[in-house]
């Protein structure tokens, strides 16, 4: 055999994954088990996301991969190349041009539009996992809607730190029913989860779970009445493009305590710079 099947996986496997995706879309936030395959990359590198992408890609799609918002880091480059070689699809770094975007730990800054699919890589799909180790029990808690324990975690945060210190993988409630782990995106991105025009698919390869948010789904971040949810970010402007509305990475630039803040979304930052915006650290 000289060629891979389109998008690496065989057609039967893709059908199986699509069935799981459809079930996930029908029950927003519910974790659908699926028979995750061995992929040619280690667990933790996005095997779940890659399988979901493989199942939804068509030859006419344009594919984009981001890793912590960036198009040019190892994980993003290797997965993009993987689908270039096995599916021959067009790739892009521009958010608005892409039809399928696989992401690790970020939602692009630019609002997504209808017809786009956002695929998340999920390390641990079960939001209750570190509170309740038994899978049989967490499934029962989901089916009976017993989510008091999730608030125990937030309570612990406040009692220890004075505020809800969970800053990523912040638990959300979907359509008033399932509590869902939005994958380790910063809680700044939680606000974008709800009412999004694009389809959001979540794939966890090692844990063998797929879940999904159809377009325009109601997603509410859990909180307390007297400690409401806050989408936080570093209180700075982007050093390169001067944006005040994007999620920032903090970079250490010397050993004298020098640092700068830049957009974690490289495409957003570059587009702004090309449009003539300049931050204080821009060369």
């Amino acid at each position, binding site marked *: 055999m000289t060629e891979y099947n389109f998008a690496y996986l065989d057609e039967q496997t893709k059908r199986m994954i699509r069935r799981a995706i459809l079930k996930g879309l029908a029950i927003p936030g519910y974790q659908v088990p699926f028979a995750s395959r061995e992929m040619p990359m280690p667990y933790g590198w996005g095997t779940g996301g890659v399988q979901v992408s493989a199942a939804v890609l068509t030859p006419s799609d344009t594919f984009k991969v981001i890793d912590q918002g960036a198009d040019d880091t190892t994980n993003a480059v290797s997965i993009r190349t993987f689908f270039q070689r096995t599916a021959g699809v067009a790739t892009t770094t521009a958010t608005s041009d892409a039809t399928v975007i696989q992401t690790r730990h970020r939602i692009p800054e630019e609002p997504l539009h209808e017809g786009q699919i956002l695929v998340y890589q999920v390390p641990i799909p079960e939001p209750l996992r570190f509170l309740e180790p038994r899978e049989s029990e967490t499934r029962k808690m989901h089916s009976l809607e*017993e989510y*008091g*324990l999730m608030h125990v975690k937030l*309570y*612990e945060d406040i*009692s220890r730190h004075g505020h809800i210190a969970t800053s990523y993988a912040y638990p959300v409630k979907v359509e008033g029913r399932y509590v869902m782990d939005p994958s380790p995106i910063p809680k700044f991105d939680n606000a974008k989860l709800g009412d999004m025009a694009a389809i959001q698919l979540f794939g966890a390869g090692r844990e063998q779970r797929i879940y999904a948010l159809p377009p325009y789904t109601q997603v509410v971040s859990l909180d307390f*009445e*007297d*400690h409401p949810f806050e989408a936080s970010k570093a209180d700075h402007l982007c050093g390169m493009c001067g944006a005040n509305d994007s999620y920032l990475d903090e970079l250490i630039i010397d050993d004298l305590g020098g640092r700068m803040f830049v957009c974690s979304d490289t495409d957003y930052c570059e587009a702004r710079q090309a449009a003539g915006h300049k931050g204080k650290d821009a060369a």
Partner: protein
Amino acid sequence: MTPLLSVQGITKRYGAHIGCADVSFDLYPGEVMGIVGESGSGKSTLLNCMAGHLIPDAGQVVFDTRTDGPRDTITMSEPERRMLGRTDWAFVHQHARDGLRMGVSAGGNVGERLMAVGERNYGDIRDKATDWLGRVEIDATRVDDRPTTFSGGMQQRLQIARNLVTGPRLVFMDEPTGGLDVSVQARLLDLLRGLVRDMGLSAIIVTHDLAVVRLLADRLMVMKSGRVVEAGLTDQVLDDPQHAYSQLLVSSVLQV
């Protein structure tokens, strides 16, 4: 008067072996029932059947619910039974570790039941947790400490606070004083007696310690080989045991 809990013909077999057989009794509001017997006599099996942890092979456990009156908790749907388990019922385990979340602070442990029934105000939850720690004689400054840093007696008192915070009407206790030294036992019993009387709780206490039932229980059932061999008022059974096994049990207590 409707009994709070009416147990009829509870039978549980483990294969050919009998866990407990044909146990029936009524428990009225405010009453404390003691179940004594040696190890393996079926008292814990009976307690777990009543609390919904085990499914009995035969029999009914009818609980007088707040909304719908008497309901059989065994045929009731699981969500309803679990709801009872965190509102009107409480279960105190012998080992505090089984009933507590060891990785969560004392305040979080007490607050869990409140959050499970929909409490969403951090300040209120914390105030109630602190209040309950006070009631079980745990210093309020320990509210953010984990139970792993507590002594055995404190863990047991914390477990009690965690169970009583939602104001249950029926408490199941499985050897609540087991594994504690005698002076700690005495304090715990004193505390339990106070709480039971103040809150008008009904309780079912399983123990092999006759002193515990003497202090806490209004009525007593003696079990042997899965069957109830004698039942009656606590003082009556302990002072004038009729069945040979009860006589043996009472006479086995060491007099200091």
